[in-house]
C-alpha cells in the first residue's frame, strides 16, 4: 500500500524533481565561481571585512531557491491530482485520507530535502575551501530560514491547491505569504538562529492546514 503511494508520487515528481535539482546545483556552481572570482580579485582583508563587518552573505543568490523548489514540488504532486478532480481516484482507495496526504507530504519533503540538502553541502564545501570552519558553519544557520521558507512554501502550495473555496484559497495564500516573508526579513549570517528552534517546531502545525484542505476537497464534491 505504502509502496503504491510512493510509486505514484515518484512518477509525478521525477521530471520536475530532476529539473529543480539541476537548478539548485546550477546556482551552487554560480556561487562557487562568484566566490572564487572574489577571492582571486580582492584582498583577503577586504573579503573578511565584507563578510564579518558588513554581513555580506556571499551565497545569497541561493536565497529563494528552496522556496521555488518547495512550490514546484507541491505543484508537481498536486496539479495532476486536481486537474479533472483526479484525486477522487486516490480518495476512493482503501486508505485513510489523512494517511494518504501524509504519505504524499513525506515523499515530497524527502525529495525537497534531497535537492536542498545537496545544495547546502555544495555551498558549505565552497565556503570551507576559503573560509575558516566557524564562518563556513554559518551556512547552515543562514540557510535555515530559507529552507524553512521552502518547506512552508511546499505545505502552503499543497493547502492552496487542495482548498476548494476561492476565498479560502486567497486567505491561505496571504497567511503563508506573510509567514514566508518573515523568513526573508533579516540579513547577515545566522540572523535568525535564536528563533529557529521554535519555528521548526511550528512547522508540523501547518500540516493541519493541508489535512483540512484535503478534507474540504473531498467533502465539497472532490
Amino acid at each position, binding site marked *: *500500500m505504502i509502496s*503504491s503511494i510512493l510509486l*505514484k508520487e515518484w*512518477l509525478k515528481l521525477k521530471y520536475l524533481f530532476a529539473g529543480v535539482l539541476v537548478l539548485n546545483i546550477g546556482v551552487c556552481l554560480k556561487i562557487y565561481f562568484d566566490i572564487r572570482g572574489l577571492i582571486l580579485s580582492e584582498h583577503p582583508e577586504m573579503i573578511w571585512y565584507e563578510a564579518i563587518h558588513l554581513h555580506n552573505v556571499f551565497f545569497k543568490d541561493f536565497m529563494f531557491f528552496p522556496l521555488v523548489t518547495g512550490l514546484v514540488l507541491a505543484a508537481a504532486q498536486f496539479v*495532476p491530482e486536481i486537474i479533472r478532480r483526479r484525486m477522487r*481516484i486516490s480518495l476512493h482507495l*482503501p486508505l485513510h485520507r489523512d494517511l494518504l496526504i501524509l504519505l504524499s507530504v513525506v515523499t515530497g519533503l524527502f525529495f525537497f530535502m534531497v535537492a536542498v540538502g545537496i545544495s547546502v553541502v555544495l555551498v558549505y564545501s565552497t565556503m570551507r575551501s576559503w573560509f575558516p570552519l566557524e564562518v563556513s558553519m554559518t551556512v547552515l544557520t543562514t540557510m535555515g530560514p530559507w529552507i524553512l521558507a521552502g518547506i512552508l512554501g511546499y505545505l502552503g502550495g499543497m493547502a492552496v491547491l487542495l482548498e476548494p473555496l476561492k476565498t479560502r484559497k486567497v486567505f491561505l495564500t496571504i497567511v503563508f505569504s506573510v509567514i514566508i516573508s518573515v523568513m526573508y526579513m533579516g540579513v547577515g549570517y545566522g540572523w535568525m538562529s535564536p528563533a529557529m528552534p521554535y519555528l521548526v517546531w511550528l512547522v508540523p502545525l501547518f500540516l493541519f492546514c493541508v489535512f483540512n484542505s484535503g478534507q474540504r476537497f473531498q*467533502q465539497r464534491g472532490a
Partner: protein
Amino acid sequence: MNVIEVHNLSHHYNGKTVYQDLSFTVPQGSICGLLGKNGQGKTTLVNILMGFLKPSGGRCLVLGESSHSLSPDVRKRIGLLHEGHQAYEFMTIAQTEKFYRGFYPDWNADIFYSLVNKMGLPHRHKVGSMSCGQRSQVVLGVIMAQNPDLLILDDYSMGLDAGYRRLFLDVLHDFAAMEGKTIFVTSHIVQDLEQLVDTIFFLDQGRITRTGLTEFLGSFKKYVFHSNSQVVPIEDEIIKGVERRRDQFTVYSYRDQDTVTEQLSRQGVEVRDLHRADMTLEDGFIGLMGKY
C-alpha cells in the same frame, strides 16, 4: 439485505434544491439503473453515495456505513467508475496495475490484463496517450480486478463508441452473474441499460421513482396514431408523454388503448389508426421524462 439505503436525503446547491426527502434502497444482488435527464443530479447522487459530497440533510448508508465517512474496509468492497473514466494519465498500463495491486487483497492481475490486452497495446503504453475507449478498458480492468461486492458506475458510456460500450456490457453481465454482486449504474445511453438492469430509478425534479424493468416495459405503453387535426394531445393524468413527427403522433400512457382513445377524443384530437407499438426503454424514458 440492502447495499444502499437512502433516507430523506436533501441537498441544495447554490440556493437551488437538488433533492428534498429522497428515499430509496438498493438490495444486494440487484442491477439498478439510475435514469434522469441532464442536470437532474445523477452524478451528484453518486458523489454523495461515495462520500465526495456531504448532503444538506438525511442519511445515506452504503454497505452499512454512512456514505460521508466510509471506512477503508468498506471502500475496498466498492468498485467505483468515475464520470469520464478517470485514471492517472501519467502511469503506464503496467504501473497502473502495480499501483492498484497494493491496495486490494483479492486483486486479480489476470482479470486486469485479460481486459487490457484486448487492446493490443504494450504494457509500457501511457494511459494519458490512450483514446477514451482504451482508457475505459484500463479503468474497467482496474475495477474488475478488485473483485468488489458493489459496483457504482457513473455514466460508463460517456465518450465510448458502440464496440467499447458492448464490451463494457459483456463484462458487466459476467460480473452480475456472480453470487451477491450489486451494480448501481447511470448512463446517458438508455438503450444499453435495457440489456443490463433489472431495476430502474427515475430521477426527476428531485423525486425518485423505483420500478422493475419488466414491470415498467409491461405497464407503460406506447401508442401511435395519425392525425391532421390542429388540436395536439396534452399531457395529463392519462397521457404521460407526446411526440409528433408531421402527422404521426406518439403518446405514452399506463392506461389501455380504449382509455387513451377516449381521452384523446375528450381533448378534441382527431385520431386515425391508433395502435400500440413496441416500446424500448429509451422510448419509455422519453415518454415519461420528456425530451428536455
